[in-house]
């Protein structure tokens, strides 16, 4: 349990208690938020998806220090992967496939999640290989281009072969179905009824917890240290025998994996995907979550993702009623205000907390005052 609360490493009982409290709050959350309607629970489910995305991007940007502005492409790859393998789109457009699969494509989520992860990882390497020698701004420009290329492909691959159905997107995507329980319908457990959106929330929560565990374990490993070493000084890292090329490719591939998995979940949850969900703006927002929360610091990234994904929802449900109350009409659209406040929040946070809302803790003190520092603080 101290995995989640490293500051409580020496107090296992407190760590277990803290984990139980957090778990109880997260499990109870939809029932509390749900009293005001399903939209709130939906927002929570999306927050979980964004946490997954942000943690995946954090591997690339936070751990390995590779600025990636096209991360949403992997989300798109995962989403289209699921959309194509669990919707009537392919069978209705390709009679040959329809003949082979008379029931249509309805692949199990257990097959699509690993497949989505693998294909996204493959795309991660495809992006990573040509940009190995690039750093900083140059890397950002190329990854930005990559993200746009994927989106434009999805937008235009409706002719000559209709693979993606172009801007109309793919509809009628199967909901998640685990052990015969369809997530599209309310699940009646007897003592409690779980509407569809609650089920998705719990599924995403589970995947998010897995993501967090994987990220923490990677961070505290030989590979995690190698990532941080190349982020800090790649010449010194090479001199220490780190194969910078392979380690960077692994960062791109593993980061992309999380993007791909959250993409498959997004497609199943929405039942519909179209290229406009994967615009550059989405990449920027996920990056903003990572940077505003605390680059490279897992709890910070989670905080950033939760705040920045819930904040617009909150606005959507307050701005319009408040304006109607005050002025009797809507003066500023919620969407416009959202971008304005987003920008303002970023400027303020970067001014007052340049390392993010919850940055990695500082270790050690200034050498000039070190005489008074406590000695023997070894881990």
């Amino acid at each position, binding site marked *: 349990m101290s995995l989640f609360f490293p500051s409580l490493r020496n107090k296992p009982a407190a760590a277990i208690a803290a984990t139980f409290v957090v778990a109880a709050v997260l499990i109870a959350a939809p029932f509390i938020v749900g009293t005001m309607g399903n939209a709130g629970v939906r927002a929570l489910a999306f927050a979980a998806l964004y946490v997954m995305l942000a943690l995946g991007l954090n591997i690339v940007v936070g751990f390995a220090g590779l600025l990636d502005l096209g991360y949403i492409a992997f989300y798109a790859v995962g989403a289209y992967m699921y959309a194509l393998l669990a919707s009537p789109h392919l069978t209705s457009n390709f009679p040959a496939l329809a003949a082979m699969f008379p029931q249509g494509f309805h692949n199990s989520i257990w097959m699509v999640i690993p497949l989505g992860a693998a294909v996204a990882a493959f795309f991660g390497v495809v992006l990573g290989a040509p940009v190995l020698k690039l750093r900083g701004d140059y890397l950002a420009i190329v990854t930005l281009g990559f993200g746009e290329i994927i989106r434009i492909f999805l937008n235009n691959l409706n002719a000559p072969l209709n693979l993606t159905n172009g801007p109309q997107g793919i509809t009628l995507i199967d909901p998640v179905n685990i052990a015969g329980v369809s997530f599209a319908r309310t699940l009646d457990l007897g003592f409690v009824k779980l509407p569809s959106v609650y089920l998705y929330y719990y599924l995403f929560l589970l995947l998010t917890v897995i993501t967090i565990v994987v990220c923490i374990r990677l961070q505290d*490993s030989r590979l995690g240290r190698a990532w941080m070493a190349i982020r800090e000084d790649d010449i010194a890292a090479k001199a220490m025998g780190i194969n910078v090329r392979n380690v960077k490719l692994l960062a791109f591939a593993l980061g992309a994996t999380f993007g791909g998995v959250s993409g498959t979940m997004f497609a199943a949850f929405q039942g519909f995907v179209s290229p406009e969900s994967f615009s550059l703006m989405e990449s920027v927002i996920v990056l903003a979550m990572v940077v505003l929360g605390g680059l490279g610091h897992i709890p910070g990234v989670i905080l950033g993702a939760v705040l920045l994904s819930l904040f617009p929802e909150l606005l959507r449900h307050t701005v319009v009623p408040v304006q109607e109350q005050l002025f009797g009409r809507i003066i500023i659209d919620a969407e416009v205000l959202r971008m304005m406040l987003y920008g303002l929040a970023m400027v303020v946070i970067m001014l007052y907390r340049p390392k993010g809302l919850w940055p990695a803790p500082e270790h050690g003190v200034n050498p000039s005052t070190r005489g008074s520092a406590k000695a023997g603080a070894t881990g």
Partner: protein
Amino acid sequence: MSAAASDAPVLRAAGVNKRFGGLQALADVGVTIRRGQIYGLIGPNGAGKTTFFNVITGLYSPDSGSFELGGKPYSPSEPHKVAEAGIARTFQNIRLFPEMTALENVMVGRHVRTKATALGAVLRTRSQRAEERAIRARALELLDYVGIRRYADFQARTLAYGDQRRLEIARALATDPKLLALDEPAAGMNATEKLALRELLSHIRSDGTTILLIEHDVKLVMGLCDRVTVLDYGKIIAEGTPAEVQRDPAVITAYLGGAHAPAPQTLS
């Protein structure tokens, strides 16, 4: 280990040439470094010391030259393979991983001698956990060895200058090098720090690690090294024990200019 292998020099480089445009940075340079030696490479500014250093650590590729490491042919190609082959280096202007703790810096040095994969880390397999414990124990031991264990959990950038040098040496030692190559480790140090560095280096030698020392500080080199090569304008002008080299007129000329004829002991 066979007798032949233990007698073989740790590093033998012969006929190394490197040209940058019109400048012959290295002309037919060769060294033979034997086990347990501190081997000094000195010379005035621009003599080619760092170029030679960068050639044997794989940062520059030589125009010609042959190399042997521990009796086996060795071609310094990619820098990360150099550490694996057994040469660990430090940098003239310290290159630590500043935001990582001192302990983590040394743990990175163990990278090349360990092999846990990403999957092993995610699943926390038994072998991965055992390896991780061994890495940590060895890193703490090395911090202790260079005398900065009390700063193990401090970020590297918060350490004092002399301690950063020590940390860099600990990180290099973590790769279990056959040859520890130090690029001007005394640069920027005050007299006390230099004395402490000298003690540390002779300690490392007595524990059996061979050291190649590139240094500006003639006093440090003369007091510490078993053999010295003097470079000037990319050529070897003298080679031998410190005492021999010190008396060499070519060396005196290179360092002090031909017009002066100072007494040799001014160099000691």
